[in-house]
């Protein structure tokens, strides 16, 4: 007699991943890396602000035409926006669900416990919340121009300078970029570990790259508000 075999249909790949802590963390790592890759490009584009309104506005215009004539105008931009929006949402929902679970799994504290983990590691959750709020503000300010004092469609340079001329906008931006640096410092190495790319031999290299990326992004993004505040960009 043949042995009984399992007949139930195996669950879908995505479903299996989303249901387990390891898989959900892999979704977080993947979406985190997508956002990270975008931020590297975004940071380099921002630096064009130091070459004057002509060059920066031209760059802003070009973004809308990437992919032409194969893609219709702004299609590439919209594809990028959809991928990024999906990444932010998946990343945030996974972070929320996993954090809820983690807190429930450790209900009691110890009498005296010195945290051994680094500052970057301990601030991933609150740093992530700051980044999430920042993303919302940033889109309302410079994409939809809802809260921008200049709000001239097609003139990103002027909008940017007008926005950063308000000191508290620059202050929030600077705080968010420091949070970003910390998030990447732990996050990039963590993603390597989560996706199974890490090994004893590569561990140091991933930490060095994580610190490098964190420093590069933070300094690159900070240059713009500092440029406006010091009058180099006006």
């Amino acid at each position, binding site marked *: 007699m043949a042995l009984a075999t399992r007949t139930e249909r195996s669950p879908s790949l995505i479903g299996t991943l989303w249901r387990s802590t390891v898989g959900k963390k892999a979704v977080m790592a993947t979406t985190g890396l997508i956002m990270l890759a975008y931020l590297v490009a975004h940071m380099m584009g921002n630096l064009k602000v130091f070459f004057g309104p002509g060059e920066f506005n031209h760059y802003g215009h070009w973004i809308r035409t990437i992919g032409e004539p194969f893609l219709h105008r702004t299609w590439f931009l919209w594809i990028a926006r959809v991928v990024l929006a999906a990444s932010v949402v998946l990343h945030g929902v996974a972070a929320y669900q996993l954090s809820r679970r*983690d807190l429930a799994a450790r209900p009691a504290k110890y009498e005296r416990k010195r945290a051994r983990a680094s500052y970057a590691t301990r601030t991933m959750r609150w740093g992530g919340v700051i980044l999430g709020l920042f993303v919302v503000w940033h889109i309302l300010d410079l994409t939809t121009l809802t809260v921008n004092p200049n709000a001239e469609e097609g003139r990103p340079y002027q909008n940017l300078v007008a926005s950063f001329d308000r000191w508290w906008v620059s202050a929030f931006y600077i705080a968010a970029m420091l949070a970003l640096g910390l998030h990447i410092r732990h996050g990039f190495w963590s993603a390597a570990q989560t996706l*199974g790319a890490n090994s004893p031999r590569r561990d140091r290299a991933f930490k060095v790259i994580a610190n490098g990326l964190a420093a590069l992004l933070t300094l690159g993004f900070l240059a713009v508000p500092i440029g406006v505040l010091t009058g180099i960009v006006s």
Partner: protein
Amino acid sequence: MNLTLRIWRQRDAGSAGAMTTYEVKGISEDMSFLEMLDHLNEELILAGDEPVAFDHDCREGICGACGMVINGAAHGPERTTTCQLHMRHFSDGDTIDVEPWRAAAFPVVKDLVVDRSAFDRIIGAGGYVSAPTGSAPDAHATPVPKPAADLAFEHAECIGCGACVAACPNGSAMLFTSAKVVHLNVLPQGAPERESRVLDMVDTMDAQGFGGCTNTGECATACPKGIPLTAIGRMNREYLRATVKGRG
């Protein structure tokens, strides 16, 4: 030396517990931490009090039973098991806090004793290999490459003590589970269950109410056997590979 102990006392799983203070005198620095607790218990018994319940068995650092959190660190200040921790690492007049492992998946049974059977259920889900029984196999029937043997051995050192869970801010069992998965998955003997092992053990780990991993690294710092943090990365790779490949 004379010490002040603040120990978690809890009558049973259902009652509320509290830290209770005891003074112990004349402790030798050559005593192990468990011998110091034995000494306290003898005094408690003579005084007609209930002795402090704690788990222990081998007292030579290999069974993993003697888990307790000492001054906020799993197994205390040295990277070893509580039975192998000696009182010379403390000074006369110290106040020492002693608490049970804290994790939702490890409920307190009494005082410092917790129920770690969640680990047994993870092992039951895949911590084995299929082998023909009846006749003894030839010793060298299955060649094992030296690097694989070394890697398996490094991860086989896990004694299931639970210090990783106790130290983790998320009460996660990833270091324990990954030690077992890596140990068996790198060996040819473990190959037939390579995919089902990691899928089932991770599923069971989640079902027991352990938290997820945030790569904090507290586990590997606390592990008395030096299971490396990269074990978790290796298990993540095995898990993702198995999800794509299917149960095999």
